[in-house]
């Protein structure tokens, strides 16, 4: 029985940790470049985020204007506006509606070549997704926040700690969102076509992350259940 042998170029045989870091970094960078190629799509996407920002912001402000004490769910107007515009920016950064690459590859069978690679698929996909995250952070976050700041009064954080905490929380949210999407996409291993679960995810994540309205507007028992029992509020 003649076996078939495959060998992989080892970057640094003596220091395996460094090798995996280099590979991971290269994958992140290629993920970044993939999105950097489509500049026009970035522009078009930002435009759409901004239009939706206006729509959602006006609705919430109109609700605030009619609410008792003008503070629905304990938020004032500026906080609601900030919530909407930062949310519109974060939407693509966290990528709760990321591309269904994995399920497409499972359906077409291309995933087999991913499994043959010497990098675990979860790691490889996570690296590519972090590249996407980096690109979105630089490009998609600024547009909505600047437009929001021009047309509405936004609140600025009063404590310096808020900013690094926000950065860490965004990164964790991106990883969390990646994990959820990976699971949803992986249903294609059983169903062959993950379109249904993906639609369900798009739908559930939008509302349960608080994209359409702050979760505090829900009855308290429901909001608390969502906070404690589901990953959604942690994503956006």
């Amino acid at each position, binding site marked *: 029985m003649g076996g078939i042998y495959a060998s992989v170029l080892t970057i640094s045989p003596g220091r395996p940790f460094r090798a995996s870091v280099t590979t991971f970094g290269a994958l992140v960078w290629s993920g970044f470049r993939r999105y950097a190629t489509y500049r026009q*799509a970035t522009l078009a996407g930002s435009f759409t985020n901004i239009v939706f920002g206006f729509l959602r912001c006006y*609705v919430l402000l109109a609700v605030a204007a009619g609410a008792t004490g003008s503070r629905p769910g304990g938020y004032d107007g500026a906080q609601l506006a900030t919530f909407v515009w930062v949310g519109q920016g974060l939407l693509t950064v966290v990528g709760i509606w990321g591309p269904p690459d994995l399920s497409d590859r499972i359906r077409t069978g291309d995933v087999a070549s991913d499994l043959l690679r010497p990098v675990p698929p979860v790691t490889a996909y996570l690296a590519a997704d972090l590249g996407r995250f980096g690109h979105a952070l630089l490009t998609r976050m600024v547009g909505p926040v600047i437009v929001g700041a021009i047309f509405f009064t936004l609140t600025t954080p009063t404590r310096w700690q808020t900013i690094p905490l926000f950065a860490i929380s965004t990164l964790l949210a991106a990883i969390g969102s990646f994990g959820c999407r990976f699971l949803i996409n992986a249903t294609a291993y059983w169903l062959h076509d993950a*379109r249904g679960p993906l639609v369900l995810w798009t739908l559930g994540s939008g509302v349960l992350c608080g994209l359409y309205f702050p979760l505090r507007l829900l009855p308290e028992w429901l909001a608390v259940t969502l906070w404690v029992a589901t990953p959604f509020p942690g994503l956006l």
Partner: protein
Amino acid sequence: MGELRAYAALLGGKARSMASYRTSFAIELLSNLGSTVLDVVTVFVLYRATARVGGFTLAESLLMTGLTAAGFVLADLVVGNIDDLKRYVRAGTLDTVLIRPLRVLPQLIFMDLPLRKLLRLAFGIFVYVAALVVNHVHWTPTRLTLAVVAPIGAAVFFGAIFVLTASLAFWWVESGEMGAAFTYGGRDFTSYPITIYSDWFRGVFAYALGFGLVSYQPALALLDRADPLGLPAWAGYAAPLVSVPAVAIAALVWRIGIRHYRSTGS
């Protein structure tokens, strides 16, 4: 007749492909219903915080939401898939469509008629009818006609917007999600009374693009309310006519786009 048979074959192929992924299709059917249900639930949640939004009560708002939901989903069901045009242009699938001896637009529609959206349409109509009942509309023959014509007008208008935004792909393949700002954005815009928007934003969306005439004006006429923004009462009855110029513009742009199309060669 032969043409009809060809369209039926396209549709049959689609139905068979859906039947082979049953679980996924069932989930899709339910989640599609869910998306419209959530739009309506959002309105209820927002009204938990306040009794009036932009001067309108929950029941009055629901009439606009229901009218929008029924019209939009009907449009989405019939021509919504035209959204994929940019994919067809990039992948070269459009070339296959162009060389067949059938009209392009109907082919694209029948290639992927999304039957999964049927439940959603039923729900949209249900909300609309329920809102009509809850609001105790003072029925006259003209109002009855308007109540029937308004959602159809809305559907035709949204259909025109779908075709228009999809046509963008003929000139700009990477237009990405830009169309969604006007299709789904338009739906969100017309789901609420337009009094809540600031002047310039309302000017652009409601009057320049015509979205204000889709649900807000007809709803005012059905509710027998004067327009706080100052349009005369007959405007509500005339509003569904806005879909006529919309369709004309969409048809024109679509035709120019098809002529302009050059294959990417892939």
